[in-house]
Structure formats: structure tokens, C-alpha cells
């Protein structure tokens, strides 16, 4: 019962993070929410281990913490590959500010991006539905 308050707060925070993951709007928000959710799961499991009186459940919490980190890195690697493979990353920016367009233009003049887009054109990287 000692950790009732903590468990309650963690459970509520899990649902808040979930709402953020469902709402988005950008993919980065979702990744942030997934990361948060993972941390909260680790805490919840640790508390559950205490409540159940079984310290072997802590192995699980440890495994979750490790796996969560790998998940975030996999996402970052995915972003990096996408930046390389496609000229403009599509569908992940719904920023209300007009600055977005400018930022994009800026990114397009970046030599690295140019090189990558040239490469993907040369490869005939077929877009879906083309």
C-alpha cells in the first residue's frame, strides 16, 4: 500500500503518454510518447514486483529498460535511412508555423541531402503507386 500513490500516478501518466502517442501530430511526438511509455512501464513493473513481493520480477523491469533504449535507436536509424533515401521526408510534419516551408527549403539546399536525393533518383527508387 506504500506505493499506491506512485502506482496511481504512473498509471495515469501511462494513459497521458498514450493519448500523446495517438494524437501525434508529428512522428517525433509519437516516438517521445513511446519512450515515455516504456520508462513508465519499467517503473510500474518495479512497483508491482514490490507489491507482489517477488524480487524476480525486477529482471523484467531491467529487460524492459534495455529493450526500450534499443527501440528508440532503431527509430533514429530508421529516420536517418529515410532522410538518406528520400528527398523530402513526407507526412511527418504538420507544424502550424509557416517556418516549416522555409526550413524545408533550407534542408533542400543542404549538400548532403542533395547528394542523397540524386542517388535515390539514379537508383530509380520507385515511389509507391508509381
Amino acid at each position, binding site marked *: 500500500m506504500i506505493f499506491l500513490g506512485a502506482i496511481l500516478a504512473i498509471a495515469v501518466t501511462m494513459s497521458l503518454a498514450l493519448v500523446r502517442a495517438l494524437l501525434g501530430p508529428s512522428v517525433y511526438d509519437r516516438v517521445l510518447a513511446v519512450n515515455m511509455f516504456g520508462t513508465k512501464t519499467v517503473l510500474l513493473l518495479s512497483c508491482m514486483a514490490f507489491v507482489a513481493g517477488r524480487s524476480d*520480477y525486477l529482471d*523484467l523491469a531491467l*529487460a524492459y529498460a534495455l529493450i526500450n533504449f*534499443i*527501440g528508440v535507436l532503431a527509430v533514429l536509424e*530508421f529516420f536517418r535511412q529515410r532522410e538518406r533515401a528520400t528527398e523530402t521526408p513526407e507526412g511527418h510534419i504538420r507544424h502550424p508555423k509557416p517556418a516549416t516551408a522555409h526550413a524545408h527549403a533550407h534542408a533542400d539546399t543542404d549538400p548532403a541531402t542533395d547528394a542523397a536525393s540524386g542517388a535515390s533518383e*539514379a537508383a530509380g527508387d520507385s515511389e*509507391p503507386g508509381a
Partner: protein
Amino acid sequence: MTGLLSGFILSLCVLVALGAMQARNLFTAVMLMGIFSLLVATEFLLLDAPDVALTEAAVGAGISTVLLLSALALTGEKEQSRPVHQGVATFVIVVTAILVVVATFEMPLLGDPSAPVQTHVAAEYIPMTRDLIDIPNIVTAVLASFRGYDTLGEVIVVLTAAIGVLFLIGPDAPDPRRGAAGSPRITEGLKHHQPLRIVGKAVIPFILLFALYVQFHGEYSPGGGFQAGALFAAAIILYGLLEGRPAAASIIPPRVLRMMAAIGALLYGGVGVVTLALGGNFLEYNVLASTQTTAQQIGIIVIEAGVGITVAGVLLAIYHAFAARGRA
């Protein structure tokens, strides 16, 4: 209190599943499936199944996210098509729903000790584990000894799936883009992020250590070959993400991984052959040593090692196949 928490987790499960299925962007769907997997794993723990929860966390939330993302990098993340067959689908769903709900009324209540599932063979396993095998983790005892044939079959299925994946997209499969002029050379990983590299590389040995702990302490705490194999694979994949896939391939070359996948299954089957040669039945561990519990424990440790080797080899071979596809 556990019941309330369980209900809460299950409700979140439904929400996330709905969100994942509705998302038009497949990346979003994969992210939500990661959360879904964590929720399901937590629910497994609430239902007193720590071994299953550990497997789901390592495999479902970790490896499966990595594999789905590397597949999405190859196939694109936008869902182009609109939902189809909605009328037919609604009809099928309603019929299925009615059938399943009617069947549900026949189900015993959650936690009923007199439910049919509790009263037959399962009730025998616990005292038999105490008398014949004497290891604290009953799940491991059932997995590796009482239902050893079953697990051997599962290991073979996992191996077969990996063979299928390697036939389809492995290094020997036809790949129109490999070596073609201008194909993207994505080999560097996250090397340019110095903080990630430092922290990540500091963490990898601990993941490997933890994997070994889960493997060899699996008779005493949640764990075993399946979980340890997945965690070991996760550690190597982490290295591959940080330093680029070729670096990971230079630690354990894919050739060795394929051999590992086969050797693990062979080790498992080999124990069966040895017991046959010693005059027992297939996978009858009792002939391995003079006292029964020692013989059983030897058998369990060896076949769990086989399972771990196979699972690690299979998952890593699959990771390499996806990550190397279409790259120069």
C-alpha cells in the same frame, strides 16, 4: 487492486490496437504496436506469467519493432489503399462476434481453480517437478523436460522460418538493387552521434551479461533459452544500429549465424540421440546421469543452451537479411 490495474491495462490495449489499425502512416502503426506489446507484456505479468512477459518484452517490443522498421525502410511507410470489402468484413465480424461471445458464456471465470484446464495434466506437473527435476522454475521444467518434444518442434519451426526468410531476401536471393549503380549505401549507422555511441557501447556488455544470466539462471528465475536468445540478439542489433550493420556482421558473420541456428537445433536433437544411444527413449534425460534429478537438470541445461543458440542465430540472421537488403 490487481484486477483494477488489469482492467485498466486491457482497456489501454484496446485503445492502442484501434489506433494502430486506424493509422494511415505505417510508422505510426508500428510505434503503437510497440506500446501494445509493452501493455500485453504487463498484462502477462499481472496474470502471473513472468516468463511469458519477459519473452514478449524482448521479442515483441524489441526485436519485432526493429524488424518492422527495417522492413518499412524497404517498403515505404504510407498506406496507399483505402479500406476495402467493408460490407463483407462487417458481416463476417458480426457473425464471428456472436459465435465468440456465445462461446464465452461457457468459459470458466478468471482464476477459477476448478476450471477444466486446472484439473487435468497441469495439476501433475507441479508435484512432478518437485520430485523428479527439482528446479524452482516450473515453466522451464515443463518446457524443457515434460514437453520437450513440443519445444523441439517449435525450435525447428523457428529455424524453418529463418530459412524461408533467407531464401527470400538473404544474401543469395536475387536482389535487383544490390550493386546497381547509385543504390543507396547505408552502412554507417548512428556513428556520428557521439553520446549515443558512448552510452550504447557501455550498455552492450551489460545486455550480453544479462542475456547470459537469463540463459543460465533460467532454472531459478524467469528466463530460459528463448528469452536469452532474443536478448543476445538485441545486444548485437544495438551494436549494429550504433556502428552500422557491417560492423555487427564483422563480430559474428552471417555465415556463423546461420551455422549457430542449425547447431542449436542439432544440439537439441543430439541430446535426444544421445539418450537413445544410452538406452533410453528420445529425450529421456534420466539416462544421462546416475541420479534422476541431476540427469534431468543436465538435459534441461543443454537443451536450453541449444534453444538459446538457435533463437539468437535466427533472429540475428533475419536482422542482417533485412538490413542488408537493397544496399550496396
